[in-house]
């Protein structure tokens, strides 16, 4: 049975890492988590991103956060990728599976998956 005492071990393990990590994150991934996003399936998308970023060892480089309504509810779940010096990339109609692919191809490999992005004509 898990106990709060186990958190002590996590704390000891994480303390140094957290200090090291601060300020190094240069890619910000944002998932729309308003009513529209949640209803369309944003929760598993967010969880898949959090999971993949950790599995791929990208936690030093990538932060995954949540935001409210992005304003394009018909395209939810929406994931935005912000990277310093680059244009924002907007992934639309995401699923957990697509999110994993984005983590591998884009966040790790630097290659944008254009088949999942929003093209100007669609807006």
């Amino acid at each position, binding site marked *: 049975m*898990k106990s709060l005492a186990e958190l002590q071990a*996590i704390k000891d393990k994480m303390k140094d890492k957290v200090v090291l990590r601060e300020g190094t994150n240069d890619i910000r991934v944002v998932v729309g*988590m*308003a009513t529209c996003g*949640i209803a369309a399936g944003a*929760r598993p998308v967010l969880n898949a991103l959090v999971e993949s970023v950790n599995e791929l060892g990208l936690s030093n480089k990538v932060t995954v956060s949540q935001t409210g309504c992005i304003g394009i509810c018909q395209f939810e779940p929406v994931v935005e990728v912000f990277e310093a010096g680059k244009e924002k990339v907007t992934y639309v109609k995401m699923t957990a599976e697509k999110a994993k692919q984005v983590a591998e191809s884009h966040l790790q490999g630097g290659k944008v998956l254009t088949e999942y992005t929003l093209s100007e004509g669609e807006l």
Partner: protein
Amino acid sequence: MKELSLNILDVAENSVKAGAELTQIIIDETDEALVLKIIDNGCGMSEDVVRSVIDPFYTTRTTRKVGLGVPLLKLAAEQTGGSFSINSKSSAEYPIEHGTKVEARFCKNHIDFTPLGDVISSITTLIQGHPDTDFLFSHTLSGKVCAELDTREIRKALDGVPLCEYEVIKWIEEYLKEQYAENK
């Protein structure tokens, strides 16, 4: 919403946005009914605003002119023959004790009852997105505790390590899963 747990995630977000330091998510079930309470100590709302949040065409958001979170929860409860209420004390009128309490009662045996679904995932998602505010979660079945969690205790034990760290979120997920498995 396909699962009640998604309504919980959605409506609890309102509490965080209202600046709540503590948001309580309480589920009390019996064989016939499920009562969900979301109680926060955020800035609260005036009577006029409370009346308007159950209106789908009211929202504080500026991107669009509709807010469906509260109306969807109300509908989900009422379509089972249950009930819905929202009470609030605004910080302007009640400087010391303010906040909002949402209560939804569902009749579980009604054909239109939406299953609770993955409530653990909603709790971890809330904590991941809002590591600096506290959540208290409690789920009982016929008075017996199925699962409970207080992030204030976790925060104390972690001593400065953010609650949104992957290892912490995973621990919370496992912690809740174990409780549900043991108290089945």
